[in-house]
């Protein structure tokens, strides 16, 4: 298990280094003049020169990248002052260190993504399990119709409708606010229920479909039939034998979906006016705040890669064969 984890972590570090290099290159080498890009529409020569100096754009791109990476691991001295260890530079717009902005914003996105994922796993896998147990019944058909519709709606369409109906008209749920785990843990959860529910809808269908077909496949396996023949109850066989075989592929699918979960969280944040990484990324882009954009991008990529390792580790716990391959 340790060897497996070490291998996965090393692979992840390589991927992250490559992503940072590609991103840095795209941001700072591809545009003819990155300083002009971050200077925006009303630019004068003074600000342009200042930006160029602040970003270290007078150096060659590989040197800039090297300094950027040194800054992340060791900290670096910048024109604006010293910037300690995880240094992603300073935001142009707010003059704040990018890292502290990220630290302020990430709990919203992580809470939303985690709650959304929990909800869609429970609902999606649940629908799939019941459909597999009751193949061909009305429930099966209704469940597949519901999840197909769910797959085809958009967060930005049902989000406002859900706020209008459940928060403004019926008053059942909060219309969504940023979590504050240190001061108000309960409110952090209740404030996220509506956004997380809305976000989960688009994922139901994939999981219910996959779970259903995996379970149907598992139920026709020899060991399941043997277990039934030995006299175990069908409920026991269903939950302990077939479900266990189906869990592995579902976890794999979940691992591949992490990036879209994150993307869904971005759209949901924006729809519900939450202040997370997605909202940060959008405002960084509209203000052409390059250091902030770069920071959000790397942070997002790292979050997905780390979440992927966790998912892989779970899979390895469930299915020992994975550790060896």
């Amino acid at each position, binding site marked *: 298990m340790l060897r497996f984890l070490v291998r996965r972590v090393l692979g992840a570090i390589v*991927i992250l280094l*490559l*992503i940072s290099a*590609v*991103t840095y290159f*795209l*941001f700072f080498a*591809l*545009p*003819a003049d990155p300083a*002009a*890009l971050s*200077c*925006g*529409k009303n*630019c004068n020569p003074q600000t342009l020169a200042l930006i160029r100096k602040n970003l270290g754009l007078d150096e060659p791109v590989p040197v800039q990248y090297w300094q950027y990476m040194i800054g992340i691991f060791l900290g670096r001295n910048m024109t604006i002052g010293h910037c300690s260890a995880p240094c992603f530079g300073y935001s142009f717009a707010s003059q704040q260190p990018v890292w502290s902005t990220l630290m302020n914003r990430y709990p919203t996105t992580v809470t939303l993504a985690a709650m959304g994922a929990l909800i869609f796993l429970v609902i999606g896998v649940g629908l799939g399990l019941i459909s597999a147990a009751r193949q061909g019944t009305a429930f099966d058909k209704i469940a597949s119709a519901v999840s*197909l*519709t769910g*797959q*085809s*709606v*958009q*967060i*930005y*369409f*049902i*989000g*406002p*409708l859900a*706020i*209008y109906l459940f928060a*403004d008209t019926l008053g059942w749920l909060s219309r969504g606010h940023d979590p504050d785990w240190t001061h108000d843990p309960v409110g952090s959860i209740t404030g996220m229920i509506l956004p997380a529910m809305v976000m989960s809808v688009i994922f139901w269908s994939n999981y219910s*479909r996959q779970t259903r*077909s995996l379970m149907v496949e598992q139920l026709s396996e020899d060991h399941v039939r043997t277990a039934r023949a030995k006299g175990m109850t069908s409920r026991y066989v269903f939950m302990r034998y077939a479900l266990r075989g189906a869990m592995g592929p579902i976890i794999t699918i979940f691992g591949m979906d992490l*990036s*879209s979960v*994150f*993307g869904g969280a*971005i*759209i949901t944040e*924006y*729809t519900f006016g939450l202040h997370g990484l*997605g909202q940060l*990324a*959008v405002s*960084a*882009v*509209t203000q*052409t705040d390059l250091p902030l*954009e770069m920071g*959000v*991008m790397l942070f*997002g*990529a790292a979050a*997905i*890669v780390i979440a992927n390792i966790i998912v892989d580790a779970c899979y390895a716990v469930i299915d020992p064969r994975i550790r060896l391959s």
Partner: protein
Amino acid sequence: MMGLPGLLPRFLRAPLGLDRGFAATVGVTMSSPTQATTYPEPSRSTGGADATVAAEIVGRSPRQLAWLRFKRDRTGIVCAVIVAFFILVAVFAPVITWLYGKNAYTLYGQDDNLLNSYGLPVKANGGIDADHWFGIEPGLGRDIFALLVYGIRTSLGISLCVTLLSVALGVCVGLVQGYLGGGTDYVVGRFSDLMMAFPSQLFFIAFTPVIIAMFVSPSDQEPTWIRFTALVLVQFALGWMSLGRLVRAQVLSLRTREYVEAAHLSGASPGRIIRRELLPNVWSTVLVQATLLLPLNVTAEAGLSFLGVGMQKPTPDWGLMFQDAAQYYRSDITYMFFPGIAMVVFVVAFNLLGDAVRDALDPRTVR
């Protein structure tokens, strides 16, 4: 009697899935006189067919078989009609708005005093009346019907370009990877892994302005077509990998087939083998994936515009309508429903069409 129905499906399936080599010899179905024009579904063919087998053998190409199978799928047909309707709306948007008598840029609400001082439509239900079928937009006061028709045109245009480019590159990459194997396969494979590791939504948000900055100086106002191109390029950059992987996996299994080896032995060049032997066998996968990819691209593009980093006002765009409507949902929720329902119908129809196409092309897949 079990023999015939049992045997038939295997024969019919073979040519459609992977084995083009089979197609020429067994792309043949039996047909009784009454069924001369329809394709007899294997499970329903009756014992009577036995007698007529020898007499009535009609040769059909795999494509014809797939088409016949598709025609029997009622859901598939309905969805194809809906999808075709949306595409026609997009193509003939100028004609539709001309017939309708409004355009997507005139500020009817402000010109005709249809908006109150808060910028909301004066009439009930978002200002729906005989002149403005879907009402008028709060704020600017444009006609929602015209806006939606043109918005569909913009969004579908972008998504179609993205889909075509992604499919083309994905197929090329997959064929090259699968056929050449070895070092090429490894390098390209790791590169596509890297691209898959990017958080796509963030990538789209962050790099659209960068690509635009490649074409125009940031201090200038960029023309609409540049934004269009940038959106296509940025989505295309992360759109080709999944299809590439699928095609690669298929080519890997096809490469060892006898007919490919035979072509190789008879001196066919790699280009010819790829074009004539491999490509025809992956096109069904490609078609199915393309139909599933397009609705995803439509919603992604609309999502970007919704976030404010896609198309910009006053260009009509499906996603921009959501952004606009989301600001007014408390006072004018009607506005939200037109783009919303149109998009749900479009995506449902496209997804079901994708399923139907898959069933028609490859009946082995069990759902």
